[in-house]
């Protein structure tokens, strides 16, 4: 196999200077042929594992799958859907009705989700104040191959949620993410929005799905701007 020295250094996860020095000292089975470097892939692989080094030769073929980017609120909320007049007198029944609405899951998963949401509520309330709650399962569903989504449920009437400020809750954002990273990411963004009183007031008007998404997009733009330094 013929590669340039930069590619070799990258495949071995070593600095360029080190690889060059080892070739000069004869410690690595790679030979210099003018400005190209020639080696036998199998032998180099064996050498690397014998010396505790990682070796990942560049593969010829389809590009490696890029790590999926973290999704933002906009797409998550869109995917989860917005529902109005969700019935229920207490936490448990409201959650049950809300979960029923989620049509991306099958019945078995819905039951599973409901149990976990209840479990989480019993630990501490997910009512974070100002009438907003963000129920989410404590650990993630076993079939982790799904995209994150947030189901927005505007309740028919406010219910006691044992929230932090003891105010009754009028809207629930059910958060379902496949990984800790995406969960934290969405949670922090949502919290940023909710921290703004004007957003909560906006929610109290029970806005339509499009208006809600627009508002969310606005907030996300703000966030993206501060993230640039």
């Amino acid at each position, binding site marked *: 196999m013929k590669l340039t020295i930069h590619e070799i250094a990258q495949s071995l996860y*070593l*600095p360029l*200077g*080190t690889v060059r*020095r*080892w*070739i*000069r*000292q*004869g*410690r*690595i*089975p790679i*030979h*210099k*042929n003018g400005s190209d470097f*020639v080696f*036998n892939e199998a*032998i180099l692989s064996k050498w690397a594992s*014998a*010396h*505790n*080094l990682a070796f990942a030769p560049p593969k010829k073929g389809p590009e490696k799958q890029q790590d999926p980017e973290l999704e933002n609120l906009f797409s998550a909320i869109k995917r989860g859907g917005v529902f109005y007049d969700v019935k229920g007198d207490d936490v448990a029944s409201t959650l049950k009705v809300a979960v029923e609405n989620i049509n991306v899951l099958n019945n078995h998963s819905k039951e599973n989700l409901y149990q976990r949401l209840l479990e989480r509520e019993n630990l501490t309330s997910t009512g974070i104040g100002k009438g907003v709650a963000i129920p989410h399962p404590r650990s993630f569903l076993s079939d982790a191959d799904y995209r994150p989504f947030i189901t927005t449920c505007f309740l028919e009437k406010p219910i006691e949620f044992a929230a932090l400020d003891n105010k009754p809750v009028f809207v629930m954002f059910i958060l379902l993410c496949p990984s800790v990273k995406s969960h934290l990411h969405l949670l922090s963004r949502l919290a940023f929005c909710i921290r703004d009183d004007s957003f909560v007031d906006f929610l109290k008007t029970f806005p339509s799905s499009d208006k809600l998404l627009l508002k969310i997009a606005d907030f996300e733009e703000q966030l993206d701007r*501060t*993230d640039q*330094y």
Partner: protein
Amino acid sequence: MRIFKSWRYPASWKFFRLDDRLLLMLMAVIVGLCSGLAALALNRSLIAMFDWVHQYHHIWWSFVLPAIGAALSSLFLEKIVVEGAGHGVPEVIYSVSRYGGLLRFRSSYSRLISSCLTIGSGGSAGPEAPVVMSGAAIGSNIAKYFSLNDRQRVTLVGCGAAGAISSIFNAPIAGMVFSIEVILGEWKSVNIIPIAIASVAGAEISRILQGNQIIFSHLQFNINLLDIFSCLGLAILTAVASIMLTRMLRSMYGISNKISAPIWVRAAAGGCAVGIIGLFLPVVLGEGYHAVQTMIGGTFSQGLALVALASLAKIVATSLTLGWGGSGGIFAPCLVIGSLVGLTYHQCLILFWPSISWVNEGYFALLGMAGLISGMLQAPLTGIFLIVEITGGYEVILPLIIVSAISTSLCHYIEPASFYLKELVERGHLLRPGTDARVLSDLDVREVIEENCITLKQNMLLRDFINIIKISPRNYFPVEDEKTDNFLGIIHLDDIRPYLFNPDMYDVVILGQIMDTQVDVVHPDDDLSEVLRKMDTHHLFSMPVVSNNKFIGLISKASILDQYRKELVVQTSQ
């Protein structure tokens, strides 16, 4: 045209690329033959020169002869070859440690000529160290001609040294062991086989051209237990003699350096002194192999006083020759001094215990030689094998081992570094493979540096800094000047951790106020051992690398450890 070009790059032929051991073996044969020839050439010319000079020995002014020889030799080295005198073997070891055995081409022949001049005219030195240097240089230049890499070149340097020693002494095992023990310092199978082959090649060519002779033959010895015990005392005496020789050599170097006469005048002065001593005690002149032969043969037969005086005189003569600018090695003088010391000891034994029938004095001469070589070089195996091979006396191997081992240990206790290695150790240049010093000297700051650091500007607010902390994986942040990009200081996360969650401070604190400007920096050209020392004294785990006032990256102990381990594994597990 391709064929013509590629014959000079055998290491890249497909056959050899996979496994270069066969290539090294073939090269070893070539190197062994060449260095063997070089050794023979020196040997023959020494014999010829000594015979020629001998005619003049009866003239009254013959004591100037060593002076002339030493002066000529140092002039030759300084002006014609422009190399500089001094021992070749430390230079070979230095180059093997640090530069993969690169030696100048002129070293392959310069020392042969200069030592021929020094020794042939009567100077008290040995031809072995120059021959080792020539052999090593021959190996190195053959490796250079065929564009071999460092590891292969080092092996060929070892082959050259082994070929030279085995040829000049007709002692293949000693050549091998010397090369591995002293020059290379590591016993690896990939080295041993080519070196063995070169050793055989050198010895073989010597046998073909000179005949298979044992240099110092001797009578049968009848050894009994008491003789074996007595060698303990001899070991101690030889250790003392080795230390004396080492110290005296060093003091002579020191005195010679203080005098500001040109180098050939100093060499002449030393030679004169040797000549004068030689007038009274001719045994101190030249190599001294004739004398050794008589001593081992048991026919030296001089009284205690004379022998003791002779050994002291030889020590002084050797120091004068070598310390004042002459060119040569210490092997042969060690053999002579050793035999003389052995004889002294034998005479003492007879003096104190006249009733016991001690074995022939040749036996003690033999053991004395072994003791002195092992003590000076601190290489007991070389001493043992050399003596066994040059005397053919395997039956004395038991006392031989005892004397070598004890002498080495005593000398090591008093002088921790052997004669060849002393100056290298003092300068910190003895880098044996697989040692901490070697790993650190191979690694470069540029290989350990982490460059993906986010830099701050001194007029940024704490608020901006918070945003950066969100995405940076580090604890240290360098601060640069807005206009010139010059490095100003470092901010460590620990310093502002208490204030990170106090939003009131976000717009009030300017980074230029809180940065640390009195920070130790590292330059890309610094030695890694120096960097680690700085880190240890100031208890730092991370330091900025700054060049030309610009920040380049960070160097941390964690990344050093990572690279250090990788380097150590690769260096030691071939």
